[in-house]
């Protein structure tokens, strides 16, 4: 019998105190507007860049009905010229003015190129400014000029399993009294507008609709029935790359699909931080370079960042507390009592590495090691 083993599935990070760093990068080179050591708030604009405008190809030759090599004779603009929407780019007159054809610019912009081979003009719209917000409140730790900043803060931190909707912030507000409670539509009230609402084991379709109508900033809950979620989103989910959904708020499921009590630890972190301002992000990517949705609750405590251990990973040992993450024991919490070295056959007849877990009701169950995550060592 081995004494310890790596958990195959890294657990989700849930802690009431850690040190969180977030790198904020501009999509292209631009300007960083804050300096090292500066304190920033959630909405502070830390950087700005200009995304090149949209190009439009205008098929002048086809529109005038002339050969590409003739187009230059009829052009009214040159590369580099500013043009307005509806402004004349080229015109053609024949038979003493009996035939008149003109080509207008579809947009405001600048003439970027003319291709003599095709007789096409490219008009590019003006650059679009992109502003980068801090996302979390904290201190600017590092600046790469023109590219990115790193912001750090002591914080409570809760990761979920999948989320929908992007970066937002608001005050934490519990709407249920236990992690096992179902969050009903009636539990969401008008004063939840602008807040991050915490539920228990399930949010119904009606709850999601109410949350949207009231104008909550975020909703964090153990689970949602997959059929309810798809009805709410209005489409069937494909690949688990999320975060860009336009649903009016950010939704995070901490456990998965179905009625699944939120982990007690996560629920107690939220209870402890009622009314704290927090950042929430539903972005999820379940592949290499995994990204999980998160709630970051910045705190004023003084901590030495390096003194805190890594989150969500660790060795499984006898007496480790684990959570089972697949049916038929999904969501059950227990204590590791044995880590057999040899492969064991499970119900499916697959020979796998297993762990024996004593559940809270005293039953000892044998499950694949791949199907548990460590809650604490």
């Amino acid at each position, binding site marked *: 019998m081995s004494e310890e083993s790596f958990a195959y599935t890294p657990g989700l990070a849930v802690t009431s105190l850690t040190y969180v760093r977030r790198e904020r990068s501009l999509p292209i080179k631009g300007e960083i507007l804050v300096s090292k050591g500066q304190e920033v708030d959630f909405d502070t604009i830390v950087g700005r860049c200009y995304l090149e405008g949209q190009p439009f190809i205008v098929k002048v030759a086809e529109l005038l009905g002339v050969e590409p090599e003739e187009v230059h004779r009829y052009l009214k603009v040159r590369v580099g010229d500013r043009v307005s929407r509806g402004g004349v780019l080229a015109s053609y007159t024949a038979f003493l003015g009996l035939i008149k054809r003109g080509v207008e610019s579809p947009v405001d912009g600048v003439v*970027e190129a003319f291709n003599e081979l095709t007789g096409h003009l490219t008009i590019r719209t003006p650059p679009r400014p992109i502003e980068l917000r801090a996302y979390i409140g904290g201190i600017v730790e590092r600046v790469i000029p023109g590219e990115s900043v790193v912001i750090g803060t002591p914080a409570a931190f809760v990761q979920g*399993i999948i989320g929908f909707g992007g970066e937002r912030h608001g005050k934490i507000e519990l709407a249920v009294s236990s992690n096992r409670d179902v969050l009903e539509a009636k539990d969401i009230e008008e004063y939840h507008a602008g807040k991050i609402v915490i539920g228990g084991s399930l949010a119904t379709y009606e709850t999601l609709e109410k949350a949207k109508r009231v104008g909550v900033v975020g909703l964090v809950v153990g689970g949602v029935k997959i059929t309810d979620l798809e009805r709410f989103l209005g489409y069937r989910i494909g690949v688990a790359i999320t975060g860009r959904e336009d649903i009016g708020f950010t939704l995070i499921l901490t456990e*998965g*699909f179905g009625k699944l009590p939120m982990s007690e630890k996560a629920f107690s972190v939220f209870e402890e931080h009622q009314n704290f301002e927090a950042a929430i992000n539903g972005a999820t990517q379940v592949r290499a370079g995994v990204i999980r949705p998160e709630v970051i609750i910045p705190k004023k405590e003084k901590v030495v960042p390096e003194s805190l251990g890594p989150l969500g990973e660790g060795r499984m040992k006898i007496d480790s507390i684990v959570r089972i993450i697949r049916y038929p024991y*999904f969501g059950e919490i227990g204590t590791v009592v044995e880590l057999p070295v040899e492969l064991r056959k499970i119900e499916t007849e697959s020979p796998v590495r297993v762990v024996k877990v004593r559940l809270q009701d005293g039953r000892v169950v044998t499950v694949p090691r791949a199907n548990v995550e460590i809650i604490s060592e």
Partner: protein
Amino acid sequence: MQLAREPRYILATDVGSTTTKARFFGKVNGEWRFLASGEAPTTVEKPVEDVTKGVRNSVREVEELTGHRIIDYSSEELRFIMPYLGGKTGIDVYVSTSSAGGGLQMLVAGVVKSITAESAQRAALGAGAIVMDVLAIDDGREAHEKINILRFLRPDIVLLAGGTDGGDKTHVIEMAEIIAVAKPRPRFGITFRLPVVYAGNKDAREDLRRILNPDFFDVRMVDNIRPQIEIERVEPARNAILELFMEHVMAHAPGYEKLRKLVSTEIMPTPAAEGLMIRTFAEMRRVNVIGVGMGGATTNVYSVFDGRFLRTVSANLGMSYSIGNVLKEAGLENIMRWIPLELAEDEVMSIIYNKMIRPTTIPMTLEDLIVEHAVARESIRMAFNHHKYLARELKGVKRERTISDIFEEVKAEETYIDMKRVDYIIGTGGLLSRAPRRAQSMMILIDSFQPIGFTYIMQDSVFMIPHLGVLSKIYREIALEIFEKECLVPLGTVVAAAGVGAVGEKVADIVVEYSSSEKETYELSFGSIIRIPLSQHKEATITVNPTRKFDFGAGYGKKVSRRVRGGVVGVVLDGRGRPLYIPQNRGERRKLLLQWFRSMDLYPEKVLS
């Protein structure tokens, strides 16, 4: 690096997107054997950002298991003890494949969708790429829509083709113009130039050089993929893609420069190596083969048919990360049709979506296992449809026609893969190799490919086909020896009929002759399966005498006789028809599925009753 003439020990690794897998081979008593495997998390991302660390960890596991010393511990950087020094020290060859960082992601652009764009797609897929999108002048999208796609996707390489040599060049120039104005940014680095392989009309090369600004694009000119309308030449484009993959994509992945110094031959993209091994096998045995690699995120299908090789990858059909997308693409009803249990639709959806968000978990109950197997059937079925779409005769070619061609007209528009002439089906990937009963993998492969006539089915034992593929570049015979003896598990022969009838109607009389004195006769009825145990080392002669509605490869109602080999599952006589008959009515369907599962002894009885 000089190659050993007679190597004794070979190490191969595959640096996957999540796991690095080491496989160790040695020559024992004159025969090549698979000795051990080691696995460790891939270290391409933060905080390690050096792939050689993951390689070191996986090889260290091999060392611990075998006691064979491979790593030179006197050096801080990863180094292997090469060549073999005798006893249990050193190796002669080290090879590697890689799909870390999401593999090779490409965008393909051509002029006519069914001509150059399709040829270009075949070239990109053959090089092991995931094709993110295919743009063509006639694809129905406006120029600004194409520009948006280009700006949104961040390909590693763009392949541009179009026009025949000496023909019209305006359209391919127009496509180049779209690429030039969109200025798509590559996945890696802010300052890095995007590689573009140009394999179109050679007369447009100079124009392209002018249009594609060298500040943004690194353009490589290669021979035209369709120099004439009736000729397709994908090899030069494919080679250029592989070169650029090494120069750009790999060079920007952390630690690869170090890894490149250690290998005995260039690192290959994992799917390209997998395809090469299947191709080598088919060529050396002179057989028609279909292979499938079922991954967590993608499903690769390979075919070698009458010497023609084709690989396709269905980027979002897979058994873990992409399992939700299989449901989305196939539709719930198509998944449900393979599940004869009392499971509600939302229960099945929950099992599938919870697997998607926790992809490393494994089924613990038989219900979960049956649901995953149902998804696997649909995933392969759709990936194979995609494959057949590209496995077609060249489009745009005017053919001389004979009277017989006129009757064959519909067929000529379809795939050149004739299921009656497929000799082997090979399956690989975690779901198949982990299937608790081999009959389950055999049934999944039969149901999704639906072979006709006599077909031999195999699967890999331990994931090592890519390792052997890259090895085959320098040691073809050794790779093939290990592939046949150590890698493939012979499942058995399936004997199946094309045609449709009523359930219970006679399909054929079948005689199985084990020797001159030992024979058995069977009556195969429509909608049924018969499994005959015949071990992998035994052969039998099977004679099928079908009724006029059914065809076992020789024609409808025509008698056919073949010598067949057994396997760990045996011989399967499949009377379910082609296309496979699955009743619409739920009750009838359930009854028939349970009958098939029982005939194949597919799952423990307790879950079926």
